[in-house]
């Protein structure tokens, strides 16, 4: 079943066609990777899906529903979570508070109930805490629960961001370069986590990644883009062998 359908997606910033006529579909339970040289428009596609940008043309459907007209804050509630290439966390809060903030859309108590801390609020709070603990256990973040984000090493912050996305309880998770800046061991952990997200949590994963070994290891299908345009779509080996893709990476300009 198709979970995410992207049709003829385009966005132009002035004369720059950052994304230009990109179409693809992500099936439920699939691990799908977008690859391409720097500036190809990969992160822009993520920003279009998470409604940070509004497309000039084309549309985005999630579970059959057109989400092109929704606002950025309505995306999490649908079950789409994401991480950022440059890590966007609440820096002056603890790891635990960052993960709990991921539960925001699941909080149903109102302001008066919150202030009075009614039994209903306490029950809900325990449930959120339980869900967050599962994420902490999954990503092995136990040692960092009460630590401020601002003082944590890069690799850990990267994992916390994945944790916050998981705490949202999504159906689809968008990972923007989950392995960039990580050591070989850390990248191996990320690969295992991505596989477990699908196997144990039933998630669909869409990721942008430069690390080809990670892409080859985990992804079912790969879309290669360059200069905002799609080059090839298919299995990892097939896409990498594609002449246009090789030309784009080697910079011969044949693709443009």
């Amino acid at each position, binding site marked *: 079943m198709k979970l995410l359908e992207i049709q003829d997606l385009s966005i132009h910033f002035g004369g720059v066609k950052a994304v230009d006529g990109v179409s693809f579909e992500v099936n439920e339970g699939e691990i799908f990777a977008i690859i391409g040289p720097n500036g190809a428009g990969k992160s822009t596609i993520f920003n279009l899906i*998470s409604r*940070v940008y509004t497309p000039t043309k084309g549309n985005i459907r999630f579970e059959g529903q057109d989400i092109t007209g929704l*606002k*950025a*804050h*309505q*995306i*999490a*509630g649908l079950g789409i*979570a*994401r991480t*950022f290439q440059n890590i*966007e*966390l*609440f*820096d*002056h*809060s603890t790891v635990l508070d960052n993960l709990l*903030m*991921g539960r*925001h*859309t699941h*909080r149903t*108590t*109102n*302001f008066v109930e*919150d*202030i009075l*801390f009614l039994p209903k609020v306490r029950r809900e709070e325990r449930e959120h805490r339980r869900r967050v603990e599962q994420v902490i256990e999954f990503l092995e973040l136990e040692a960092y629960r009460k630590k*401020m984000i*601002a*003082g944590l090493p890069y690799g850990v912050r990267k994992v916390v961001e994945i944790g*916050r996305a998981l705490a*949202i309880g999504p159906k689809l998770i968008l990972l923007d370069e989950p392995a960039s800046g990580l050591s070989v061991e850390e990248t191996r952990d990320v690969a295992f986590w991505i596989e477990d997200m699908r196997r144990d949590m039933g998630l669909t994963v869409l990721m942008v990644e430069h690390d080809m070994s990670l892409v080859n290891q985990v992804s079912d299908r790969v879309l290669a883009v360059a200069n905002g345009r799609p080059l090839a779509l298919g299995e990892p080996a097939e896409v990498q062998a594609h002449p246009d893709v090789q030309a784009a990476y080697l910079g011969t300009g044949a693709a443009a």
Partner: protein
Amino acid sequence: MELLQLIIGGLANGCIYGLVALGFVMIYKSSEGVNFAQGDMMMLGAFIALGLGNSDQMGLPFAVAVVLAMILMFGISWGVERVVVRQIFGQPQFALVILTIALGFIFRFVAGSIWGYTPLVLETPFAGQNMRTGGIVISLSDLVTIGVTLVLTVALWSFFAFTRIGLAAQAASQNQMAAYIVGVPVMRVNSLIWGLSGAVATVAGVLYATRGAIDPNIGLLGIKAFAAAVIGGLGSLPGALIGGLVIGVIEPIAGRYAPGELAKMSPYIIMLIVLVTRPGGLFSQIHMKKV
């Protein structure tokens, strides 16, 4: 005895600084910017309450006038955010500073053209009522000021610490992009916080007006309140109140015992001392990394 008397009056004054400082902190907590019109919002709130409540104006009962004024100021501040402040969303913080200074001038002009520049007195049920205990005179308005301030500070603190929307506001101040993707409607939250800060400013204005006449320039008190907020750490609500109290108490004591103009300078001298010794303020929210 004289010192104790000064301290009590100072605490009540300090509560007003503290309440205006709470407004600074609320807006800072949600949009990480400083609203320099906070003092003028206090002034406008006081005048609206006066316009609704005084017998020669609309003559509504005091409590009704105050609640209505709070609701009106909530609406005005909410509208200011929606219509004006939102236009500079994403601009450097300096833009907000200039914009809010301009807003302050507009509020002063509006109040001046409706109520004039001659000082007016708000009619309150507790005017002129004093209590004497052991040589000290405590006015009822001092007691009301202190009580209301404490209750409001605790309420606001719980709002930011425990409620869904309060937490969302704090999240938005730390990282707007991250707030969006966890589902926080950042713009809507900002408008709400502005509205709330308008209501809080009105309470401060009414309490100020129970202690003396008001004119459109009383908003300049906002500068002292800003010093209070900085002393408290700008991100901390209890810190803002403590900062206000510190300034409120030091001022009359310096006025009594220190030479000349030192009393007027005292709030800023304290602010400088705090900034030099504890750059993050007394209740710093920026936690230093322990080495």
